[in-house]
């Protein structure tokens, strides 16, 4: 619950940064913060009270194979949000790098990082 609210507030703070800042790099930092907030919300939704990570080892059950699956089902949390976020983090870094590359390119052509200087790209 506290974690969910934290994630939501991080999303809103990142959105605030994206809306108000002028510098392109600061906008992208806002995007990164927002990304982290979304990941926190997604993972926190998959949490089940009092359960442990969905990796079966000796701390969960001593059984092996299918027997372990039956015994572990009511002891672990939901693995699906973890699997989603696992790839989303790496993709987020690649997308951030792509945005930064575009920002550098804009700086080289327009010689400025201020978003208000790129008037001709408004539509």
């Amino acid at each position, binding site marked *: 619950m506290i974690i969910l609210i934290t994630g939501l507030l991080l999303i809103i703070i990142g959105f605030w940064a994206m809306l108000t800042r002028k510098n392109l*790099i600061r906008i992208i930092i806002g995007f990164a913060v927002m990304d982290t907030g979304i990941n926190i919300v997604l*993972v926190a939704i998959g949490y089940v009270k009092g359960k442990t990570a969905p990796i079966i080892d000796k701390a969960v059950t001593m059984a092996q194979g299918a027997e372990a699956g039956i015994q572990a089902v009511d002891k672990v949390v939901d693995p699906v*949000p*973890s699997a989603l976020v696992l790839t989303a983090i*790496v993709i987020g870094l690649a997308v951030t790098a792509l945005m930064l590359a575009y920002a*550098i390119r804009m700086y080289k052509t327009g010689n400025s990082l201020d978003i208000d200087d790129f008037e001709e790209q408004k539509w």
Partner: protein
Amino acid sequence: MAENILIIVLSTISLIAAVFAVVTKKTINAIISSGVVSLMASITFLLVAAPDVAMTEAAIGSGLTTVVFLYALKHVRGQRSSRDD
């Protein structure tokens, strides 16, 4: 009990660091603040029982995010005055 207090501490630190990343003047301070947010997020992932995600966040947030932003900042810095940031 201890976990609940840890959650409060982590939330406070990450929220303050995120606000600091928005309001600070220099870009490099904002970059380091996003590193703090990433560290706290990684411990949070561990608390909600997702060690895979925590490990990915640790590997990305400890070095690569900072470096990617700093490379961009380096290219931008070239023509400006050199000492300020």
